[in-house]
């Protein structure tokens, strides 16, 4: 066990010594992207373990250590981490926990603090917690996000979105079962190997590689008629994580549908954009705004490479850019609506409807505050403006049963089949 050092406010730090000895435990959210992230962190010299556990014990542990009214993602993520620590698989003196943290008025920004409280309650306060965030909160001597890491993580996220976008369009139709996932796995390997040699990061390289990815996915042999495309939007964790949404994508596949899941890149762009809009609405530093604009431009540029790459294969449905989604939300919400998924959630639904995906599952943790407004609150107007839209909102919660959720989704699918 490394020596424990604390910052001025008593927060346990992740030290350089720990970096050498400790393994970072990291909760799963978006399998393709997060497995690349894990590998990229390993390239920086960290030992990382991505937690793929899914059993009921995670929820039980979460209920035990987290206030039961806290949102479901916090309960799951913290439950998953503590359950892993208690599993006996790891030396509890040689692990640290790794969690992403968003800033902002949603309670999600408090997950990391709730995790520390839970550790305390479990008598595990000697385990350091590392926050991964873009806001410069909680610095640690043994963990830093350097430019090289950023220039790997951001492209990896965009590659991840591309692979997920293409794979979702192949998987329901693949002739050889498993071909899609196999190709996705091959590409994550290749991409990580490339990053290790600092390749695949520039826009020029990305254009080439992404077109190649699109071509290889296009080559997967597909069959059958077009299935009903079902959009999945919502709170970021329950939208993506199979643990959070009771394997929603598998359920949709089993019902003979094609899931359409907007990616992570837009969420990141949204969070950067919030900073710019904040300054527009309330005033603030010119320099900060400029820096954010530069970062936004960089990420949006990478996203454009992805959009272009998808276009090279006409058999695939295309993608809208962040700017297009943002333009679409006018008349619904203001750009100051930034807590949680804010206006992006509504924007994604509008974009899905525009692109012909009128059947949508809007997922959220039970009692999700921002989604009262940007999710449930917007559905009536969407229905008025787009009578063809067919949106069902599903709450996820430790007590909500799958049968209840599936019955409501089935109702939505029944309407979809009828072509409302």
């Amino acid at each position, binding site marked *: 066990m490394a020596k424990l050092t604390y910052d001025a406010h008593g927060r346990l730090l992740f030290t350089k010594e720990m970096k050498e000895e400790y393994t970072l435990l990291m909760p799963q959210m978006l399998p393709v992207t997060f497995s690349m992230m894990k590998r990229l962190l390993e390239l920086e010299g960290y030992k990382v373990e991505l937690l793929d556990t899914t059993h*009921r014990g995670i929820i039980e542990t979460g209920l035990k250590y987290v206030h039961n*009214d806290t949102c479901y993602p916090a309960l799951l993520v913290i439950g998953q981490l503590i359950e892993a620590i208690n599993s006996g698989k790891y030396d509890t003196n040689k692990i640290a926990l790794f969690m992403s943290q968003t800033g902002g008025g949603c309670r999600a920004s408090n997950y990391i603090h709730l995790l520390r*409280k839970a550790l305390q309650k479990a008598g595990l306060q000697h385990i350091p917690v590392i926050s991964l965030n873009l806001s410069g909160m909680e610095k640690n001597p043994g963990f830093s996000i350097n430019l090289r890491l950023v220039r790997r993580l951001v492209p990896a996220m965009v590659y991840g979105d591309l692979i997920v976008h293409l794979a979702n369009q192949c998987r329901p139709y693949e002739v050889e079962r498993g071909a899609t996932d196999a190709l996705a796995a091959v590409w994550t390997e290749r991409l990580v190997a490339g990053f290790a040699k600092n390749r695949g990061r520039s826009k020029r390289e990305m254009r080439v590689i992404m077109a190649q990815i699109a071509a290889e996915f296009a080559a997967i042999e597909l069959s059958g008629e077009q299935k009903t495309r079902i959009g999945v939007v919502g709170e970021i964790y329950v939208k993506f994580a199979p643990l959070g949404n009771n394997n929603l994508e598998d359920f949709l596949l089993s019902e003979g549908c094609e899931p359409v899941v907007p990616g992570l890149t837009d969420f990141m762009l949204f969070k950067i954009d919030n900073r710019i809009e904040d300054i527009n609405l309330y005033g603030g530093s010119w320099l900060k705004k400029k820096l954010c604009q530069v970062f936004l431009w960089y990420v949006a540029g990478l996203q454009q490479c992805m959009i272009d790459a998808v276009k090279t294969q006409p058999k695939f449905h295309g993608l809208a850019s962040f700017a297009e989604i943002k333009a679409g939300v006018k008349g619904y919400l203001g750009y100051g609506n930034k*807590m949680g998924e804010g206006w992006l959630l509504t924007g994604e639904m509008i974009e899905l409807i525009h692109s012909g995906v009128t059947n949508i599952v809007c997922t959220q943790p039970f*009692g999700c505050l921002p989604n009262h407004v940007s999710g449930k609150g917007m559905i*009536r107007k969407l229905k008025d403006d787009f009578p063809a839209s067919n949106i069902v909102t599903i709450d996820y919660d430790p007590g909500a*049963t799958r*049968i209840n959720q599936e*019955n409501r989704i089935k109702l939505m699918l029944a309407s979809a089949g009828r072509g409302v």
Partner: protein
Amino acid sequence: MAIKIGIDIGSTTVKVVLLDDNNTLLYRSYTRHYSKVREVAAEQLRVVADRLRGQDVVPLITGSAGLGVSKASEVAFVQEVFATAAAVNTYIPDTDAVIELGGEDAKIIFFGGTLEERMNGSCAGGTGSFIDQMATLLDVSALELNELALRHEKIYPIASRCGVFAKSDIQPLLNQGGRKEDIAASIFQAVVDQTVGGLTQGRELTGKIVFLGGPLTFLQGLRDRFVETLELDAEHAVFPENADCFAAIGAALCTGGVEAMPFGELLRRLEEAADESGLTDTLPPLFAKKADVEAFQARHAKATPEPVDANAYRGDAYLGIDAGSTTTKMALITPDGGILYSYYGSNKGNPVTILLAELRNLYAFCGDRITIRASAVTGYGEDLIKSAFSIDLGLVETIAHYRAARHFNPDVDFIIDIGGQDMKCFKIRNGAVDSILLNEACSSGCGSFIETFSKALGHDIADFSQLGLLDQTPTNLGSRCTVFMNSSVKQAQKEGAGVESISAGLSLSVVKNAIYKVIRAASADDLGKHIVVQGGTFLNDAVLRGFEQEIGREVTRPTIAGLMGAYGAALSARDMTGETGRLLDAAALGNFSHTARPSVCNACTNRCSLTINTFDGDRRFISGNRCSVPLGGAKGGEPNLMRYKYEKIRVMTGKGAGDGSRGKIGIPLGLNMYENLPFWFEFFTKLNFEVVLSPESTRALYQKGQRSIPSDTVCYPAKMLHGHVEHLIDAGVDTIFYPCMAYNFDEGKGDNHYNCPVVAYYPELLRVNMSRLQQVRYIDAYFGLHRPKDLERIAGAFFAAEFGVPARETAAAIRAGYAAYERFRQEARDEADRYIQYAREHGKRILVVAGRPYHIDPEINHGLDELIGSYGLVLVTEDSIDHLVPKAKRKILNQWTYHARMYDAARYVATQPDMQLLQLVSFGCGLDAISTDEMRDILEATGKLYTQIKIDDISNLGTVKIRIRSLIAAADALDGKVML
């Protein structure tokens, strides 16, 4: 041609219909399945076997529990709303909307224009099971409930969102003597409100409406409520024949495209499916073998009161009564604690009648052998019973339970009592109650809940709990509220779990709910070393065993676990000083009479629903009141800063110091406006606008806007706003100002200064959900009060563009607004100082109510501040004392302005011996999941009590009273004012 078969397997019933080619109904059946989903479905088909043997049939399954059967039997499935729509289109083609209530689902289908279907969310209880549960509570069948409702005189407001809430509204009505007829009708009205309010979500329910489903077929009283509420005439309210089987009929109609099969084949598939059982989620068994059960029972038999020969005893005795929420308990003890006589029974919705009979029995038993020296009463019905029978002493339940627990284990340091309706846990430190935890309305997975399930599954409660003891695969049902539990049970049934496993699972759910949700304990040491468990629910060995298993420690369960409240009351009666022996004597009981009459108090805007009880023609007891005015007390009471602030805010309407020449600005008083109105009022009147403030919140105002609420789980303060805006539009205001406020004032106290997402963006939700807002100029722009200088510039540009106000004028008005806001805050602080000084001069306790600014709205706090005053407490608010401590870093991200105030107020209270704190939390406030734990930590770290009250649209203050009285009693004990 093949016969069409529709099979609708719902949450509680199975419906089977047969249709011929012409869609003529050949046969129909409607049967409760008591969780034997697959068996009953197959059985129902066998009934028609003779008729169909050898024929081809086309079957289709529908219904919420039908999905599993469909998968297992490979018979096609159609979603039930879809099936219902098909049936309605065929038989009643000009329908505008369908309202269908089932066992656990409530649905509305809108026809005409675009077809839209709505189903209740996972947190919505206004359904058949809810009615069953409520009927159980009144000790009648659902049909008897209906009979009662037809004879009602008045309707009480009952929370409609969820069964659990409704229950906590109904219980006190019963205990306070409300008429069953009125309560029955009120229950039906609650279902109507839930359906109309919760499911229409902004779409009007007009035209021809078809009512379907079992409850609406069988319950005339429920139909009446719907027809009356929706103002329908006979032509527009359609109650079709076979309304209980419509989904099944629809399924049969949808069989086009389904492959025909011989009837025998269908039967075979269903029968084979019926044998399948695939349980995925089970828990370890309670006991492995019978011998373990016996050893366990022997161990617990030891904690028992002193033996006494009750039939031979002569001398003094003391009577304790516990008038609980669902049961009434009575204990008569000897001076050393032996039990002479006891009673435990359901209060059957009328505790007075039950007790009258029991007291008569008691006097017969006592004869001239035993003299009742003193009597005491505790529990929900305390006030009523005390007044009815002239009991000497009334005491708060927590204290009664501690008295009793201490009798069995003098070292007791933790008590958990799970009764029918509520759960109480308290820690004991240095011989005093140190911290009290009560379950919230939303987590009451208590005793009556197991009872309701056992009845629904066709068992007596005693057998039902025994069933689970030796089950080897208890079903994991989760640990949330009853409503969720219903669907967990449904899922388990679907997966083929037996009654034994469900029984054990339910018991374990109660235990987990208690430990993790109410107590929030992670280990046994969080509880204590000497744990006493009590309450009727712990007489259930499965619950007791589950509890010991879960915490990994043996506990004391007295054999009289169900009587502990009464026993503790009797002990208190024994020890009381002062006048005793006032209990009505046998002769007085002989002539006892009781009438209860509903009434409404008109003394203030709370308009409390009163029940006026009259005993023996001359003694009166009034219940349902918040303050003492209806009892003849004076208005005013103790100093109350919530009232002070509210009155100051309410007058911020009109032209102020300006001339109103720029026109009228309507402002809805809700959420952020409770904090910001002093700013905006000054701002607008300075610019010569006239401010039109929306009226005081009332239940009626809420209902006025209820139909446009899109999310039924958002907090009540947010829902209120729909009514406020409706009112402003009605009042003819052409400009409504309700800005988005992502940020609050920057008070420099925390890591940031946000508002919560609902406060921040609710204006945008109103814009798109209230179509009438298109008739007015609605301003929901973003303003940042946290950056005063930038605001002058940004608002300057905004008001120049919008109203042509010169920027310089706007800037000056902004500055005046800040000054006015500061003045308002300072005056409240000064007022609080005076109150505190007054309290100290008069030796009164000070209660700091910590919540959010909008909690001062009397409709939101339900007059709780008045209630606090009636207990002699001086009330100040968190924002009047938070400036008294310096800023300090918290372990959580302290980024909301209101939270920062609460944390600082708690830190200040922690330093003041004569101050206590009460935190108000709105149901559905996700942020308070963070703040409540932090507040508790701050207070308990310094040995202070933490008390929380969760409020919603329920107006019953019963649980609030218990909390406040417990708080006072515990604080008194800590101060050594009262020896327990």
